[in-house]
């Protein structure tokens, strides 16, 4: 941790005071949760992370007996909101929707002096909420239907084949780098500001291909405005059984974007255990399962220790890919 201890304490006190002011109840009560829980979403409202959080917030609040309030604190590749939680009091009333950007990619992507937390040590990782694979889609008229035709087109293009992504340094950008390496082809990354504009460009045919996350691509695949080429998952996806995986087509490209629940380091074990159990209970309800399934999300089943290991592995996996992509910021 790079910030001064004094700032942490002062912020903690301020957070504590405002929490008291908010609910008008003693913040030091024994039973948890004794006040509404703030769930920080480190992205703007309306995105996948926000959606995933809102889908569990209500059920979680009902089970815990205190409302779970979503607070969006976007910025710096999800690091602004995550840092806020890293600095909060570890009392289980401030949590973050941790994800592949905030805890696996951004800390390697951004310049060291702007990264003010350790993705593993400064958090208590509580539960994996959901994960979904990435998927590659093509413009309908591009003549790309599978990895073989993709490879042929990329080889034929003198200056590489254009592939769109939702942004430089996103997991989908890194997949383009990985596929180019694994398949030995020349891919030319065209970044956009978010998945929406990138998908528009693919539908319009300005860019023939896109590496996207399943939630933002699902409706377009179902509606037929783009063609799914390959799924970046180990097995075929239950909601899209007709889409072959990269692995089946001969390239071992697997990537899940994941969303989890994490708190500040030092969260009491009793709270962690209870929160993990309640999250999994909410994820087991038919309604939540159905909603996640619609955009291709698989509910998480890891216990807290398993999720902590998972975050550490993800962080270790992406650091070298970020370096190879040349997208390191700063």
């Amino acid at each position, binding site marked *: 941790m790079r910030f001064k201890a004094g700032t942490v304490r002062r912020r903690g006190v301020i957070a504590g005071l405002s929490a008291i002011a908010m609910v008008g109840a003693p913040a030091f009560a024994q039973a948890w949760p004794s006040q509404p829980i703030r769930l920080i979403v480190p992205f703007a409202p309306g995105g996948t992370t926000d959606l995933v959080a809102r889908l569990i*917030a209500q059920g979680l609040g009902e089970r815990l007996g205190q409302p779970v309030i979503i607070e969006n604190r976007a*910025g710096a590749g999800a690091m602004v909101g995550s840092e806020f939680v890293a600095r909060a009091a570890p009392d289980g009333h401030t949590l973050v929707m941790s994800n592949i950007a905030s805890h696996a990619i951004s800390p390697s992507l951004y310049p060291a002096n702007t990264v003010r937390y350790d993705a593993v040590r400064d958090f208590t990782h509580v539960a994996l909420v959901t994960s979904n694979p990435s998927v590659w889609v093509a413009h309908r008229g591009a003549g790309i239907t599978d990895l073989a035709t993709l490879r042929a087109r990329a080889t034929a293009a003198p200056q590489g084949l254009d592939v769109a992504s939702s942004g*430089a340094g996103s997991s989908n950008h890194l997949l383009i780098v990985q596929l180019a390496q694994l398949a030995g082809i020349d891919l030319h990354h065209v970044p956009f500001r978010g998945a929406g504009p990138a998908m528009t460009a693919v539908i319009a045919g300005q860019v023939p291909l896109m590496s996207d996350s399943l939630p933002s691509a699902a409706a*377009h695949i179902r509606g037929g*405005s783009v063609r799914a080429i390959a799924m970046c998952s180990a097995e075929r996806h239950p909601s899209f059984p007709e889409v072959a995986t990269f692995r089946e087509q001969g390239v071992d490209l697997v990537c899940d974007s994941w969303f989890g629940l994490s708190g500040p380091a030092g969260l009491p074990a009793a709270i962690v255990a209870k929160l993990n159990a309640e999250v999994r209970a909410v994820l087991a309800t038919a309604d939540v399962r159905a909603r996640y399934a619609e955009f291709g999300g698989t509910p998480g089943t890891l216990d807290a220790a398993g999720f902590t290991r998972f975050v550490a592995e993800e962080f270790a996996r992406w650091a070298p890919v970020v370096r190879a992509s040349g997208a390191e910021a700063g």
Partner: protein
Amino acid sequence: MELLLTNLGHGFAVALTVNNILFCLLGCLIGTAIGVLPGIGPVATISLLLPITFGQPATTAIIMLAGIYYGAQYGGSTTAILLNLPGEVSSVVTTLEGYKMARNGRAGAALTIAALGSFFAGTVATVLVAASGPLLTSVALSFGPADYFSLMLLGLIISAVLAQGSVLKSVGMVVLGVALGLVGTDVQTGQQRFTFGVPELSDGVGFVSIAMGMFGIAEIILNLERPEQRSVLAAKVGSLFLTKEEFSRATPAVLRGTVVGSLLGILPGGGAALASFGSYMMERKMSRGRAEFGNGAIEGVAGPESANNAASQTSFIPLLTLGIPANAVMALMVGALIIQGIQPGPRMVEAQPDLFWGLIASMWIGNLMLLVINLPMIGMWVKLLQVPYKYLYPSILVFCAIGVYSLSNNVFDVYQTVLFGFVGYIFSKLKMEPAPLLIGFVLGPMMEEHLRRAMLLSRGDVMVFVERPISASMLAIAAAAMIAMLLPSLRKGKDKALAE
């Protein structure tokens, strides 16, 4: 045609149920309120109110959220006209002529034409959404990165050509605006530019902070310098009705604004802001009262206000026909739909006819409600001008602070606003207008993004800008405007016209 009427009939049957009317009204009321409160915009409000809609059917939820969005466009003009405080990007240009009109004692007329223009534009744009949504989508899809770049270049050049006062100063402000827009993460490489290690700056300088600081807070500081001259202003607030001359001048501006707004609203990423800028520039060039611009020309309120409302309706087209959100509010709508179990996408019109046609019908009902809500209240808003400074200004500052904070729940944004308040004060002392700066700030980064994407796709071949017909014609108009500005005889004529 017959099918359209059947569908619309179905839509009205959905929208006119008691529950849907109530939620439409609720949305319109909330929208007007947040539009009036500086800084608190539809994005923050809709994200706060999203949980309330979970218990309602999807159509009802979307009807209410849409009401908040276009209601905010109605309300946003109120503070822009009365207090020189644009709460939304789209009401920045309304401050230019609207606030001058208020200073001339025509606040009531400015508010009336803003409401009437918005109503007319909203109604027409809704017809457009219903009748030719899918067709217009394909037009929007034919805009490539090169075309966007040329369109925005044209916008910037025209804004410099038509600037009032010193051309040098306004070009300087545009350039400064573009430079401020470069702060943050570079889209192409992910590099941090001009952030000086401050993580809060990695997503750029906040638009609301700049707009509120440069316009609102700077204006308050300026007013504190002067002795309170409110009694004069209050006495002249007078009639809410338009004079015959004002009406005949405003009507063509409303019509032009509706057309410009409807078209620009469909372009992804543009929306209401681009529409109101576009309409303002058009009015400056074409309207009968162009000589009066800078001193409270009614066309400068009527055109942009119509345009931003038309655009806020047509920006639903990409969402409803493609399932692609054109701006942050539309992204929230997508979220609301998914939470309701509806996947927005290209098949939504067929799969969810209740939702699609119900929403369209509710837009008409909502626009009518807004007119009824807003017109009688204009008298009340205008009375706001009679509140003594010592009560009014502290309240505005508090609302601004709350509004800015609510954007991302971060105090950094509040500090940023204060800083831009002082900068704006210095600028107005130097007689430098903040509007060109904001235009540069909004258009600059979009222009850069499209320029670089066009070059990336063409592998560095600049010919792409002249090979595409849309792009080439935009560039030709821009070149003509530049030549016109440089020709001495024409320039003299323009200076004379603007000086009058």
